[in-house]
């Protein structure tokens, strides 16, 4: 028994617990493992077979299926290995006649009341019960008795339940309770009558179910099925293509199931970062847009009568390049603006940057990051030195406390939301939610501070003041790693709990309790999103968050950090590779002559030194007539920008606009030429997720019609304009990115195809960086910067007495170009609904489901009202997804002076019943 093997069984536990090793002997061989692991975990990590049905590494073990029994020397009876923590020197037998007899007996019992209809079951081939029956030779049962006639629940677009096939392992219930926190289903009845159903056996649509389908992913048999993918293909007929989800910035790894060149299913690989097998409703069920018949399949030209007509690629390229060259010759390159896209790959964004700078000769390149996290960059660069999420999704499990401020995490970044909920339920994480609305995750919060929109600085400074007054700040960290604290601290005392309560409307005692929790919990993390950034004080909001994290010494530590959640699949990457007006890839400044020279040499062209225009400024310049042309790749400013009536005016004013997209968007309607691009499933490349993780995007299906990969379109136009780019494939583009970009220097496809990597990754052996600023801050010392509260640009008054705030909902995404093509999602959320507090509604004579008119100084929108107390009094919420009730007709284009980000999250509005 001295045949010791090195084990890769590593316990997911806080770093400060140490890593004590033990040796366990399984079937005569010794295995080293971390202390605290169960026998089953160690066995599975070492590829030792132990049968199991109720175990899923994502869930707490339950020990109900009684299949993972093993013998342990010195114990009189077989023990369930999923519940038995291994001890040093323990001698385990997994494969004795006795054990095999017990397993077979249990399987026979299960089979005795399980329909043996594998030939028509969608799970055949991926059913754990079928596999075990095969392995143990269980073809039938000796136990004849009653069998069940149980329910089939088929009352929603996504989750199909056939309880006839259910083995009552409870994995779906535990998934829903422990990971998703929805508690939508439970056991009902007793004994033979037991069944898993929603409360009162009603439709899942009437429960807190979020239709993530993770219950389906954990079901070991065929009881739960993904409704839209049923009866499409046997699992062995599909090719699984591993790729990265095209929705939010979490960057979930998904396997597209492909048969006959069509996507017939989606699953998530187990044990793979960052989502470890979990998905949300959009990632699992939102892929119908790929093969949608409303895709653009041919280049289109607006003819003299204003209609789009089909043209060939050659003509399209000629027209675009001639028009752009003509404008350059007449008005100079800065008369052209280029909008790149947070939806396309790093490689394509890099080419867009090269196209703008080298082919056109302007730094007028930007993308929608301007509208979401521009203030994260301008807030975190002066404080930390780097504008990205400091920590990783995987280290939420080390957090003792978290603040979520201005992020509706479970709806906008569901899988990160699930990870936070899982840690609240299983690891004692304490959550503080700071949000004007009772967003779904507040159900799991220890404290909910409900501030007025736009008063975040007051709340954050108030929390810091309490922490400082009570001596809960980390003076060692502050002294060793930061600067500017003295001046900063002097400004804190103005934010007394009383004053903060008055400004923000939060309860004084709650504020103190929140400060106590955050100040006393180590490590503690902060998550934020658009509720922080999309304000005229967005930069200062972010600085206040950075200050709080430094004050409590939480930067550079597992489970701590400042975590801006990026909203698009590749918004991080689009920034990283230079789709910004002031930097090349890797945040290298265009103004820096040495840097510029490096890129000039690489691209063989003299490059402009002057910083370019951002999205919001391009719109202004188009109105004033200085900007003559726009080249738009995969963006939809006609819905996504603030004050879209103004945007429409700008787009109409352009001499020429080319749009490269997969659908005829609201913006494309204004184009002169439309070029059909490809979606994520039709090309190769990389996306970089919110935690700086660079992940492969792999082609699964062919593009429709004559659509071609976006990077090829960019190359063609660039070549026709006199700046040829000679890339044979996406990989060559990444090789150039890594040559020119220090933070991506160690990135190449060979490494990525084995494992995703987080930047900075500075050479080919660098393992990537999961936590930023762990030794020192990127800028050297962390800088405390004092900030002051100032109200939003537009505050309620007599004429417009309410505050309008905007945001996302779970079942739609951005301007609905993708989710609008998915039937199930449209069933769940068919239209925009304005959320109104019940007190406000009653004083306005508005009842739930009434039609209402929202009016601001920019325009008006008609929509349906949802009346409840989940939204703070005085505040109206409207999702921005819907073209038939576009929130951005209403929003205020007032900008943060530094980040140039518009104030989507607060403007004055008037409401009336129609």
């Amino acid at each position, binding site marked *: 028994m001295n045949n010791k093997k090195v084990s890769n069984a590593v316990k997911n536990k806080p770093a400060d617990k140490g890593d004590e090793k033990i040796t366990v002997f399984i079937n005569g061989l010794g295995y080293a493992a971390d202390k605290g692991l169960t026998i089953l975990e160690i066995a599975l990590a070492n590829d030792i077979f132990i049968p199991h049905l109720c175990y899923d590494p994502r869930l707490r073990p339950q020990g109900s299926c009684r299949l993972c029994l093993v013998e342990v020397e010195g114990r009189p009876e077989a023990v369930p290995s999923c519940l038995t923590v291994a001890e040093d020197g323990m001698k385990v037998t997994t494969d004795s006649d006795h054990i095999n007899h017990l397993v077979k007996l249990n399987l026979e019992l299960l089979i005795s009341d399980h329909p043996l209809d594998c030939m028509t079951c969608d799970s055949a081939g991926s059913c754990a019960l079928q596999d075990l029956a095969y392995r143990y030779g269980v073809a039938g049962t000796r136990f004849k008795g009653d069998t069940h006639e149980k329910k089939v629940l088929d009352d929603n677009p996504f989750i199909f339940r056939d309880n006839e096939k259910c083995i009552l392992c409870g994995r779906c219930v535990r998934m829903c309770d422990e990971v998703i926190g929805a508690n*939508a289903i439970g056991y009902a009845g007793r004994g033979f009558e037991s069944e898993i159903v929603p409360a009162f056996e009603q439709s899942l649509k009437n429960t807190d179910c979020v239709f993530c389908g993770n219950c389906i992913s954990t079901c070991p048999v065929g009881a739960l099925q993904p409704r839209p993918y049923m009866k499409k293909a046997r699992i062995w007929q599909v090719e699984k293509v591993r790729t990265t989800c095209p929705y939010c910035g979490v960057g979930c790894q998904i396997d597209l199931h492909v048969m006959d060149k069509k996507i017939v299913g989606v699953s998530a690989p187990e044990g793979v970062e960052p989502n470890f097998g979990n998905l949300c409703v959009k990632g699992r069920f939102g892929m119908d847009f790929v093969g949608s018949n409303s895709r653009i399949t041919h280049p289109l030209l607006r003819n003299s009568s204003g209609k789009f007509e089909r043209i060939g690629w050659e003509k399209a390229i000629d027209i675009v390049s001639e028009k752009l060259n003509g404008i350059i010759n007449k008005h100079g390159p800065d008369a052209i603006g280029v909008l790149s896209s947070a939806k396309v790959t790093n490689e394509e964004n890099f080419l867009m940057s090269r196209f703008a700078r080298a082919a056109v000769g302007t730094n007028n390149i930007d993308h929608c990051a301007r509208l979401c996290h521009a203030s994260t960059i301008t807030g975190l660069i002066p404080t930390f030195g780097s504008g990205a999420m400091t920590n990783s999704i995987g280290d939420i499990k080390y957090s003792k406390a978290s603040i979520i401020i201005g992020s509706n995490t479970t709806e906008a970044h569901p899988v990160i939301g699930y990870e936070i909920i899982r840690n609240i339920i299983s690891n004692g994480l304490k959550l503080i939610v700071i949000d004007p609305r009772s967003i779904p995750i507040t159900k799991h919060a220890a404290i909910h501070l409900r501030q007025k929109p736009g008063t975040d600085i007051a709340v954050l400074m108030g929390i810091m003041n309490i922490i400082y007054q009570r001596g809960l700040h980390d003076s060692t960290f502050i002294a060793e790693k930061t600067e500017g604290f003295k001046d900063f601290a002097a400004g804190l005392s103005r934010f007394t709990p009383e004053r903060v309560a008055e400004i923000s409307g939060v309860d004084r005692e709650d504020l103190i309790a929140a400060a106590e929790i955050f100040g006393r919990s180590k490590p503690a993390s902060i998550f934020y999103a658009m509720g922080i950034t999309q304000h005229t004080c967005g930069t200062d909001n972010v600085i206040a968050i950075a200050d709080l994290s430094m004050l409590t010494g939480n930067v550079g530590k597992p489970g701590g950090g400042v975590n801006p959640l990026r909203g698009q699949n590749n918004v991080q990457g689009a920034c990283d590779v230079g789709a910004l007006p002031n930097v090349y890839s890797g945040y290298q400044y265009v103004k820096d002559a040495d840097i510029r020279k490096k890129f000039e040499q690489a691209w063989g062209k003299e490059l402009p030194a002057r910083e370019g225009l951002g999205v919001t400024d391009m719109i202004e310049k188009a109105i004033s007539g200085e900007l003559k042309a726009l080249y738009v790749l995969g963006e939809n400013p006609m819905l996504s920008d603030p004050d879209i009536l103004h945007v429409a005016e700008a787009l109409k004013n352009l001499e020429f606009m080319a749009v490269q997209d997969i659908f005829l968007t609201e913006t494309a309607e204004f184009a002169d030429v439309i070029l059909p691009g490809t979606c994520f499933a039709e090309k190769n490349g990389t996306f970089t997720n919110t935690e700086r993780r660079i992940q492969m995007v792999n082609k699964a299906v062919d593009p429709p019609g004559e659509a071609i990969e976006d990077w090829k379109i960019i190359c063609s136009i660039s070549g026709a304009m006199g700046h040829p780019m000679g890339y044979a494939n996406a990989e060559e583009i990444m090789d150039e990115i890594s040559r020119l970009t220090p933070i991506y220097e160690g990135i190449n496809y060979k490494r990525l195809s084995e494992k995703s990597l987080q930047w900075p990754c500075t050479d080919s052996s660098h393992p990537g960086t999961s936590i930023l600023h762990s030794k020192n801050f990127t800028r050297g010392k962390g800088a405390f910067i004092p900030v002051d509260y100032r109200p939003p640009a537009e505050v309620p008054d007599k004429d417009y007495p309410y505050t309008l705030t905007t945001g996302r909902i779970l079942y739609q995404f951005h301007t609905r170009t993708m989710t609008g093509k998915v039937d199930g999602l449209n069933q769940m959320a068919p239209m925009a609904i304005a959320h109104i507090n019940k007190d406000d509604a009653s004083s306005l004579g508005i009842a739930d489901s009434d039609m209402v008119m929202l009016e601001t100084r920019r325009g008006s929108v008609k929509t349906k009202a949802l009346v409840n107390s989940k939204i703070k009094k005085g505040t109206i919420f409207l999702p921005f997804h819907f073209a038939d009730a576009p929130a951005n007709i209403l929003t205020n284009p007032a900008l943060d002076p530094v980040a140039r980000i518009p104030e989507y999250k607060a403007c004055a509005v008037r409401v009336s019943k129609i």
Partner: protein
Amino acid sequence: MVESNTVKDLVKKKGNKREDLVTVLQEIVKHEKFLSEDRLLEVAREFDLAPAEVYGVATFYSFLPVKPLGENIIKVCQTIVCGIKGKDAILKAIKDKLNIVPGQTSEDGKFSLLTVNCIGQCDNAPAMIINDKPYVNLTYEKVFKIIDEYQP
């Protein structure tokens, strides 16, 4: 019927920890004979539990009905001793007398029949309970007489 704030009052008296749940549900059944959806939702809210969980607990116990039942509830023991000693004859008597089988309510709404697990009367089997009163050493004939007592 119970006033709308009764669940709140009950919780104040009995507590709202998980271990108090069954007691509170029993109290509601005592007053209202069954647990309506509205009551279970109130209980879920007061206990800060998911409705699915409260529903699961309620449906686990045959003494916590979640559907309205007849005026009188007959619970016949179906466990092994009563089974050997003639449970089937008891059920037949009820069928003959009231024309109901387990799970059903008589047409006039006077009786509901349930089968339950051991009620602790093994030494006097077979046994049943009507409302809260146990009846033991039953025979086919005895059941007829007992039911007559509830039908004046």
